[in-house]
């Protein structure tokens, strides 16, 4: 299972990356895209939308299932990956890079303490 070590992970299979500019990038993990299967539809929020902690920021739909996307931190959407909404297959091909979903400007000090490291996430999903 591919789990890049520079990311934080949630129990609901999202990853978060702290960017140098203070923004946070979110996407779903390789495991999640594998479980969903080929994604045929991706709904992401508009730029400027505000996301509440543990709230939904979008929907990924495959031929098997519909998955809600959750953010463990609150913030404002600075960018959504329109390439991925136009071609949702990007999320399957490159979940951690080209298939990123949104960039958030965290509200206040974002707390990453409750999130999992790559090692913890790999162990969680292997269990």
């Amino acid at each position, binding site marked *: 299972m591919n789990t890049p070590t520079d990311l934080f992970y949630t129990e609901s299979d999202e990853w978060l990356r702290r960017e140098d500019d203070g923004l946070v990038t979110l996407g779903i993990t390789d495991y999640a895209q594998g*479980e969903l299967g080929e*994604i*045929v*539809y991706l709904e992401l929020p508009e730029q400027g939308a505000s996301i509440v902690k543990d709230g939904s920021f979008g929907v990924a739909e*495959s*031929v098997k*299932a519909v998955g809600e996307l959750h953010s463990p931190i609150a913030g404002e959407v600075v960018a959504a990956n329109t390439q991925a909404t136009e071609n949702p*297959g990007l999320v399957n091909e490159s979940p951690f890079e080209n298939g990123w979903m949104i960039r958030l400007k965290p509200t206040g000090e974002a707390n990453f303490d409750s999130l999992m490291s790559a090692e913890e996430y790999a162990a969680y999903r292997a269990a």
Partner: protein
Amino acid sequence: MPNSLSLEPLLFELSDPGSASDYLPPLDVPEASLPFVVRPELDLPEVDEHSVVRHFTRLSQNTFSIDTHFYPLGSCTMKYNPKLNEAVAAMPGFAGVHPLQSEATSQGWLEVLFRAQEILAQIAGLDACSIQPLAGAQGEFCGLLMIRAYHNGRGEGEKRCRIVVPDSAHGTNPASAARCGYAVTTVKSNAEGGVDMDAMRTALKDDVAAVMITNPNTLGVFEAQIEELCALAHENGALVYMDGANMNAILGQARPGDMGVDVMHFNVHKTFSTPHGGGGPGAGPVAVRSILEPFLPVPHVKQHEGGEFGWDWDRPDAVGSLHGFRGNSGVILRALTYILRHGGNGLRQVSSDAVLSANYILARLKGVYETANPNGCKHECVLSASKLKAQYGVSAWDIAKRLPDYGFHAPTVYFPTIVKESMMIEPTETETKATLDAFCEAMLAIAEEAKTDPDLLHHAPLTMPVGRLDEANAAKCLNLCWTTPPAEAACESTGEPKREVAGAPTY
């Protein structure tokens, strides 16, 4: 297995200009031009009547239906639809009545609807019922509107903005709640597949309008803590909505009203054998406790003191009407036919046999497939292909695609979502033991194929008119428009136009 089915050409491909049967009478009014023309060239197929009949007959034979195949689609209760229902619905006294006829000349119909209301309320163990909602999801919508009206009446409508839904509830429940503007809190299941009561206690804050529960739930497990759960919700000032989709498991055995449920809907196409057909028409009657009765939609069917029946529009607290006219009465009539034909003891036998069938399948298959029902199930069992996937790369999807080759419709797959590689099998009470055995043999044979020839399963089905469809592409780029193919696109060998098959079956 022989390939007995072949790909049916499109009507466009059968077109032979000049061959169409002509039934239009001669023009006997002055000819007039349309003020505008949307499409000057209409490339409609021209086919003679006999060929059209054969075309659609062949198409109808290229599909699976309850009348042709075992259809164990979990959560959907694909039981046999007795032809008696159709015979009754076709009686001229029912079929020939217009919904705008006077009450005086529609007494028979009104009595049918009134009796359906009464009987459904009785089966629910609740006080009143409306036959108006057109589907289960509209029943949910109606129930939630009534719940909101109830809280509004107590001055708590604003405050109570949240619906709590267990993760083993029917998938439409959170969608209906969101549709009604409620926030949704999901509560996880415990190890036994029931609601985690500690999580439920935590979720039940004073902003909760209702708990929406499906009982038995989508794991095929009866929520044994339902009484405690309802009491907890009521202490908190919230109401309890029960999705009646799985009533086939408890029909005549237990009444939701006795469990503490305040409002529920029935899916008559599941529990009471009305057709699932083609997305409608359907019916999703809602039954309610007396506290919600004033909010039932209008018009409601009532019986006057003199005994005659009529439409009651004088219900000032009603949530409104859910559609034009009176509900899909023909569907309610079929459901009432089924109920009266069985009687109370017969309905109890229905649920007993449905539960027995599901447990029989579970017992025969649980050694080979993992199960979410180690302690038995109600009317449906949930198996998993996780082990086959890990060992041989064969998924629930592959198994579902292989089953048609053995003559069976696939079960529901990848639902419930809380079980990996899930296959949800609901045999219903209307199948013989021989059919159940044949299905189990097919499932066991496929598990063997997973070991010996997994690649075969990746390419299944092998004997259907079309092989494995590209369902992702069909979802992303569905093209339902016919365009006459240019000459160069013709196949060299056959001279037939090339054609891509798009379109995916839905589970």
